[in-house]
C-alpha cells in the first residue's frame, strides 16, 4: 500500500441550512475541495452519511452527488457507521488511493438534520443503537450516553462540574471558527444550570443537531508536491470495532474500540502520545470525550476529566483539543462530522487556522471519529509534509 496525501479541503458552515438541501451542501463542499486542490475531476467519490434515507427519503448518495458535482468517476458509493460515517468514507477513500485502484478520490461527509417536521431527528439518531433492545425500550442516543456518565460519576466519585472544562474549551475555540455553529464562550455557571436532556446529561454536555458538509481530495503522496497547497500526509487511518449495545460490554466505561484503533494508528504511524501536536476528539458528549481520552491512553481510567483545563487542552496547552470547537461547538452534523474533523486538522497542519486557534508549529494531528457509543471508531494520524 502506498502513502496518500490530502491536497484539497472544503466545507460549508455548520448551521441550520434552511436554504440548502443535502445535495447543495455536499456539492458545495466537494467543489470547494477540488478548487482548493486545483483539480477538475477525481476517480472515485465516497460519501459519509447516516440519516438521508431515514429523514430525507434519499439513499444512493454516491450516484446522486457524483452526478450533481459533475464528476466522471469509476466508483461512487455511500458509507454508514452512525456518527462515524464521515471517517468511514474518509478511510475508504484512503484505501482506494493507497491500494492503487484509483489515482484520486474525494471523501465527503454530509448530513441534513434540521428541517423535518414528520420524522424526528432524535428517533433517527437512536438508530445508531440496537433498535429492538435499546431504542425500542425508550433510549434516545443521549440516554445511552447518560447511562455512561452516571456510571462514570458513581464509579470514580466524579462530580458533574469536572466535565465542564471540555465544554468551555470547545466553545472558547469555536469563537474563532467562522464555520462553527456556536461562536460564543460559555461559563461554568451556565453549564451548571443548563436544562437536563437525559439526567445527568444537560444541554451543554451535548453537541447540537445541525446541518453540514465537508470534503477532502486524496492523491498518492508521491504526487502531493505538484499541488498548490501544503500537502498533509495520512500516516495512519485505523479502525476499532466493539458491540453495538452497551449492555453487551464487560466494562462499558472502557471503550475497547477506541483503544484498538488508537493503538493500531500509533503503531502504523510509528509514533506515541507525546508526538501528537493536537487532537480532534469526538466530543459529542462531555462523557464521551472523557472516556475516549482514557481509552486512547491520554489519561488513566477515571482520571480523564483532570485534562479538562486550559493548560492541558487549550490551544497553547500540551494537547490542544477540539481546536475549531469540536462537535460540541462547531456542531455535530453526524455523518459530516468525521470529515469536518479531518478538514480542521488539515487546516492546522497547513498553518492556515485563524491566529487565535492556530496551534504553533503544528506538525502532527490525531483525529478520532466515533460511531455509536464507540462501536465503530476511526483514528487518523495526519502529518504535515516535510517540504
Amino acid at each position, binding site marked *: 500500500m502506498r502513502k496518500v496525501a490530502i491536497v484539497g479541503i472544503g466545507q460549508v458552515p455548520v448551521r441550520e441550512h434552511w436554504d440548502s438541501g443535502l445535495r447543495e451542501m455536499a456539492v458545495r463542499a466537494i467543489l470547494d475541495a477540488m478548487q482548493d486542490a486545483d483539480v477538475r475531476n477525481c476517480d472515485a467519490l465516497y460519501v459519509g452519511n447516516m440519516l438521508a434515507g431515514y429523514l430525507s427519503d434519499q439513499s444512493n448518495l454516491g450516484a446522486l452527488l457524483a452526478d450533481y458535482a459533475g464528476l466522471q468517476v469509476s466508483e461512487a458509493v455511500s458509507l454508514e457507521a452512525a456518527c462515524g460515517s464521515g471517517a468511514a468514507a474518509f478511510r475508504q477513500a484512503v484505501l482506494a488511493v493507497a491500494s492503487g485502484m484509483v489515482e484520486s478520490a474525494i471523501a465527503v461527509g454530509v448530513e441534513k438534520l434540521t428541517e423535518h417536521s414528520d420524522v424526528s431527528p432524535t428517533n433517527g439518531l437512536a438508530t445508531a443503537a*440496537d433498535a429492538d433492545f435499546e431504542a425500542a*425500550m425508550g433510549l434516545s442516543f443521549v440516554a445511552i450516553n447518560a447511562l455512561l456518565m452516571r456510571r462514570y460519576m458513581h464509579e470514580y466519585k466524579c462530580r458533574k462540574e469536572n466535565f465542564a472544562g471540555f465544554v468551555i474549551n470547545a466553545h472558547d475555540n469555536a469563537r474563532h471558527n467562522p464555520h462553527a455553529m456556536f461562536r460564543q464562550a460559555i461559563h461554568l455557571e451556565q453549564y451548571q444550570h443548563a436544562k437536563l436532556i437525559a439526567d445527568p446529561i444537560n444541554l451543554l454536555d451535548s453537541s447540537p443537531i445541525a446541518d453540514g458538509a465537508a470534503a477532502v481530495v486524496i492523491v498518492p503522496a508521491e504526487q502531493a508536491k505538484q499541488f498548490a497547497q501544503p500537502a498533509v500526509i495520512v500516516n495512519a487511518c485505523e479502525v476499532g470495532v466493539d458491540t453495538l449495545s452497551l449492555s453487551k460490554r464487560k466494562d462499558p466505561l472502557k471503550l475497547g474500540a477506541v483503544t484498538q484503533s488508537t493503538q493500531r494508528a500509533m503503531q502504523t504511524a510509528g509514533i506515541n502520545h507525546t508526538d501528537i501536536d493536537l487532537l480532534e476528539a469526538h466530543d459529542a458528549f462531555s462523557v464521551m470525550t472523557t472516556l475516549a481520552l482514557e481509552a486512547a491512553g491520554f489519561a488513566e481510567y477515571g482520571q480523564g476529566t483532570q485534562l479538562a483545563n486550559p493548560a492541558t487542552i487549550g490551544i497553547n496547552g500540551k494537547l490542544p483539543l477540539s481546536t475549531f470547537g469540536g462537535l460540541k461547538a462547531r456542531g455535530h452534523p453526524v455523518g459530516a462530522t468525521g470529515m469536518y474533523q479531518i478538514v480542521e486538522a488539515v487546516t492546522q497542519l497547513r498553518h492556515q487556522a485563524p491566529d487565535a486557534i492556530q496551534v504553533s508549529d503544528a506538525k502532527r494531528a490525531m483525529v478520532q471519529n466515533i460511531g455509536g457509543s464507540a462501536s465503530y471508531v476511526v483514528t487518523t494520524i495526519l502529518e504535515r509534509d516535510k517540504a
Partner: protein
Amino acid sequence: MDLPRIWRLKSQRYKLEGSQCKSCQKLSFPPVQVCSDCRSQEIEPFRFAGKGSVYSFSTVYNPLTQFTEFVPYVVALIDLAEGPRITAQLTDVKPEDVSIGMKVEMVIRKISEQSDKGAIVYGYKFRPPIK
C-alpha cells in the same frame, strides 16, 4: 414498527427469553445465534428469572416520539442475577428514588404506542421488588 416484528420478539419481551450456549453455558440476552465466547452454534433458549440490580440509570426528558406520554421516564442498565446486563425502563418508582445497586424485578407493562392507529407494544420493565 411492523406487527410481525413485534410478534417475533414476544418471547423476549414477555418472557425475558435469552439463550444459553450448550457448549460453554454462557448466557445471553438478547438471544444469540453464535456464542460470543466459544463460537459454538449449539444454542438453546434460556428464560431469565427477571431479578437484578441497577448498573446505571438516566431520567429522560427529551424522548423518542413514541415515548412522549411517559416523560420523564427512567431508563436503566440492569445486571440480571444470572449474569447478563439488560437495557430496560424502570417503573413504579420516582426518578429521585432510583440508585445504582438498587434491586429490581421484571414486570410486563405497556412499552410504547406507535400512533393512534398503530400497535401498542407490551414488554418488560423493571420495578423495585414487591415484598
